[in-house]
């Protein structure tokens, strides 16, 4: 194999950078796209923040559990927006009818997925940093004050969001834009099951094992332990990470199987319905 062939076959950071650049150019060219990253997380945070204020004033328990709602909504947004950031970048290629160009270029699927992961972090940063600062300004809630715990929460949530994002991307390649609604709604299945706003103990006993099979459940329980009991539950984060590794691997395997199936069924160029 020639040097040039070797370079083409190996993982290329240059090609990843090219894709990140492509999405960055797109974001830069469209202020509604940037506004969209901030608008809804800010609305959510304000609504739950004011609700929390109201409950704090009227309930002894909630007074003690200060910030759990705002914390939950901000962490939920990391999970939800992380996946959405991944999936929307992917959908942009289908909307632009550019998938054919990419699939016939030397871009490898693993490089494409890596670029989408980088973009999900960039989009999250654009949306979440201003909103977390707003939370400090409006409610005195400092997400950054979580310190190392925030890093553990973030790592686990973003891994789950990528696992789902990769799986949804595979479904889109295989089924075209007919699967688009999954990109927008898949994560909402996690909203009741991962116990974002309430402890796992609230769920019926038979549903609790399902909740504990999902990594974000550990993060939200961990956040409540931190805010209510002032304890960082490293054990929960380690368990979440272990499940995330399995979930991410399953998402990647599903993606490559769906991509192979798309090649067999000729759906790579049919990006319509």
């Amino acid at each position, binding site marked *: 194999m020639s040097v*040039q062939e070797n370079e083409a076959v190996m993982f290329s950071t*240059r090609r990843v*950078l*090219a894709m990140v650049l492509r999405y960055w*150019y797109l974001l830069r*060219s469209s202020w509604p796209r940037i506004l969209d990253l901030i608008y809804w997380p800010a609305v959510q945070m304000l609504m739950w923040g004011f609700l929390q204020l109201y409950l704090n004033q009227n309930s002894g328990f909630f007074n003690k559990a200060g910030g759990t709602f705002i914390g939950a909504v901000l962490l939920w947004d990391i999970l939800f927006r992380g996946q959405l950031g991944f999936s929307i970048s992917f959908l942009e290629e289908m909307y632009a*009818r550019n998938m054919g160009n990419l699939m016939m*270029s030397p871009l490898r699927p693993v490089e494409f997925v890596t670029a989408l992961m980088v973009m999900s972090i960039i989009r999250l940063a654009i949306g979440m940093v201003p909103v977390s600062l707003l939370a400090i300004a409006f409610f005195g809630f400092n997400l950054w004050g979580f310190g190392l715990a925030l890093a553990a929460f973030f790592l686990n949530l973003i891994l789950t969001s990528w696992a789902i994002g990769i799986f949804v991307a595979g479904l889109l390649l295989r089924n075209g834009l007919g699967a688009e609604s999954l990109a927008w709604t898949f994560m909402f299945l996690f909203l009741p099951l991962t116990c974002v706003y309430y402890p796992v103990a609230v769920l019926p006993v038979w549903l609790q094992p399902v909740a504990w099979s999902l990594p974000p459940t550990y993060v939200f329980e961990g956040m409540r332990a931190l805010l209510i009991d002032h304890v960082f539950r490293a054990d929960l984060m380690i368990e979440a990470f272990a499940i995330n590794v399995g979930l991410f691997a399953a998402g990647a395997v599903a993606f490559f199987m769906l991509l192979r199936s798309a*090649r067999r069924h000729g759906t790579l160029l049919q990006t319509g319905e």
Partner: protein
Amino acid sequence: MLSAATMPADPTITVDCLVKIYGKDVAVDGISFALKPGSVTALLGANGAGKSTTIATIMGLLTPTSGRATVLGAEMPRQRHRVLHRMNFESPYVDMPMRLTIQQNLTVFGMLYGVANLPERIARLAAELELTELLDRPTGKLSSGQKTRVSLAKSLINEPDVLLLDEPTASLDPDTADWVRGRLERYCRERHATVLLASHNMAEVERLCERVIMMKRGRIEDDDTPERLIARYGRNTLEEVFLDIARGRTDAREAAQ
């Protein structure tokens, strides 16, 4: 199957007993051909003849049901990453991102194809394709002729050895279409590139191609130079030959034979 007699020495593209079946539909039914380096070949046929399926397999977008397609010695799609940097394609049915400027699009694709000295390459290409003044304009705000030139620039950005063209001049006015054909001719001559072209424009095929492969219902119906095909069917133009084959009127050929 390709025989030693039909196989050129060191072919750039080989398609050997290629079959593609979707459910019960046979899109390509055991076709074989080989293209020699530096040749310009047209793959013709009515809609549904199997051209797009054949080209998609050569590009590595489709896994054949049986048989194989190789490009520059790499089996497609299994070994596609060995050769995709030496290939490119152009089709009016695949868009470039509309919000990105021409410069941004060419930068992104140049990086994907690992083009060295990219700014210089873009500048040279833009000058050759008369895009210099438009480089900062979003691709979505161009006329269809300008968009075709951008697609052409993208398809030539890596100076490919193998170029696949799917109706490169569809929906262009005659003047722009002629201009595009001229550029393609020059590129093939200078780079000695192997080109496979699908087109419904027979004048274009007569001008650009030294060989024509006619497909019908997934099979190769005929395969020769445009001149010999015209003579064999006793017609005056390739378009008439195309209609004869598409409509099953092969009497002229049989009579001539």
